[in-house]
C-alpha cells in the first residue's frame, strides 16, 4: 500500500507544477482548479502505469490522452479553449532528468573515444535520448488525439454532458 501514498503525494506535486505554469502563462483564474486537477491526474496515470512496469513513453501517452479528453468538457464548462487546460497540465510529465542525462552524455561523447567507459556512455545516451524524444512526441500528440478522434474543428461542436448554458 505504501506506493499508493507516494503516488498520491507525487500527483499532488504534479498538480502544483501545472499550477506554476498556469501562472507563468497568465491563465484566467477560473481555470486554475481544473489545471491543478488535470496535472495531478496526468501524473497519477503515468506513475500508476510505471508501477505496473509499462513503458515510460506509453505511460506518458496515456496520461496526455486522459488530459486531452478531460479538457473538452472543462472547456465547455469554463468557456475557455481546451489548450488552456492541456498545455500547463502535461508539462509536469516532461522528462527533465532524462533530458539532462542525455545532454550530459552527449557532452561526454565529444571526449576521448578510447576511454574504457565510452561504449557504456554511448549506449546510455542513446537510450536516454530516445526515451526523451518518444516521451515528448507522446505528450504533444497525446493531448490532441481526442480532437483528432472526435473530428470537430471546435470543441463547441462536441456535445458533452452537464455543459453549462
Amino acid at each position, binding site marked *: 500500500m505504501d506506493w499508493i501514498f507516494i503516488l498520491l503525494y507525487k500527483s499532488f*506535486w504534479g498538480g*502544483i507544477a501545472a499550477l*506554476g505554469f498556469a*501562472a507563468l*502563462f497568465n*491563465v484566467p483564474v477560473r481555470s486554475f482548479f481544473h489545471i491543478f486537477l488535470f496535472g495531478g491526474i496526468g501524473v497519477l496515470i503515468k506513475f500508476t502505469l510505471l508501477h505496473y512496469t509499462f513503458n515510460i513513453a506509453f505511460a506518458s501517452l496515456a496520461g496526455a490522452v486522459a488530459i486531452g479528453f478531460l479538457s473538452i468538457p472543462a472547456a465547455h464548462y469554463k468557456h475557455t479553449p481546451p489548450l488552456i487546460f492541456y498545455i500547463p497540465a502535461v508539462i509536469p510529465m516532461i522528462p527533465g*532528468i532524462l533530458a*539532462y542525462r542525455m545532454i550530459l552524455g552527449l557532452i561526454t561523447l565529444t571526449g576521448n573515444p578510447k576511454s574504457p567507459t565510452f561504449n557504456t556512455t554511448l549506449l546510455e545516451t542513446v537510450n536516454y535520448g530516445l526515451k526523451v524524444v518518444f516521451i515528448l512526441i507522446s505528450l*504533444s500528440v497525446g493531448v490532441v488525439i481526442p480532437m483528432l478522434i472526435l473530428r470537430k474543428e471546435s470543441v463547441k461542436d462536441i456535445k458533452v454532458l452537464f455543459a453549462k448554458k
Partner: protein
Amino acid sequence: MNELGYTATIEEMRELADVLLKVGTMLMSAGANTGRVRNTVNRISEAFGHSVEQHITQRSIMLTMLDDNGSSIFTSVRVTPHHVINFKTISGISKMSWSLVADQWTIPKIREELKRLEELPHYPRSQVLTLVGLAGAGFCSLADGKPLDLAFTFVASAVGLYVRQESLKAKFNPYMAVYFAAFVASLIAGSSSKLGLSDSQNHAYVTSVLFLIPGVPLINSFSDILDGNVQNGVTRGFVGFLISFSIALGILTSALIYQF
C-alpha cells in the same frame, strides 16, 4: 449594393480586415496554434458576411479579402509582435468570437473588447514567482527529491524566473535570458549537494531549471504539423529546440563551476 457590386464599401472592408489582422496577430503572439488563428479569423469574417484567405507565419499574417465570386479585393499584412505567452488573451478572444456571432457585434465594439483584453493585467510578480518556485519544488518531488531538495529548488526556480524577467526587461535576447536563468537557478540548486547538505544525486540541481522548458512551442509545434501547417510547426519546433539548448548550456556552465 454600391457601384462596384459589393454590399459593403471598401472602407468598411478595410476596417474589418484591420480588426481581423489585429485578432490574428494577438492570438499568434499569445501562443495559439495556427489552426486556432485561422478558425477564429474565419469565424469573425463570416459573421460579417465576408470570406477571407490567410497566410499565417510565426512573425506575420497576410490576409486577402474576397468578393462574392472568390476573387481578391485587396491584401494586407501585419507583423506579429514578439511572442509573449498570455492565455487570458486566447481565452478572451475565443469567448468574444462566439458572442459576436450570437449578438451581432459592430466593429467598434470589437475594437473596444480587444483594447480591454490587451490591457488586462498579469498576475502580480510576487504571486507568479511563488507559484513558479512551487512548480520547481513539484518537479523535484516528481524526481524523488527529499524535502531539503524541494526547498532548494523552490528558491532556485523563483530566483531563476526573476533573473529571466529582469534580463528580458534589460532587452537581452530571449535565448540569452533563458541561459542566464538556467545558469543562476542551477547554481543555487547545485549548492545544496556541493555544501554536503544533500546526497540525492543532484535532483535539485537538474529540476531547478525545468520551469524554463518550452512547453507551448513544443506542443503547438506538433498540433500545427498534425493540422497540416507544417512550416509553422517546424519553426516552432526549432524555437523549442533552441530554448532547450539554452537551458542545457546554462546548466552545463554551472556544472563546469561545481565540477559535477
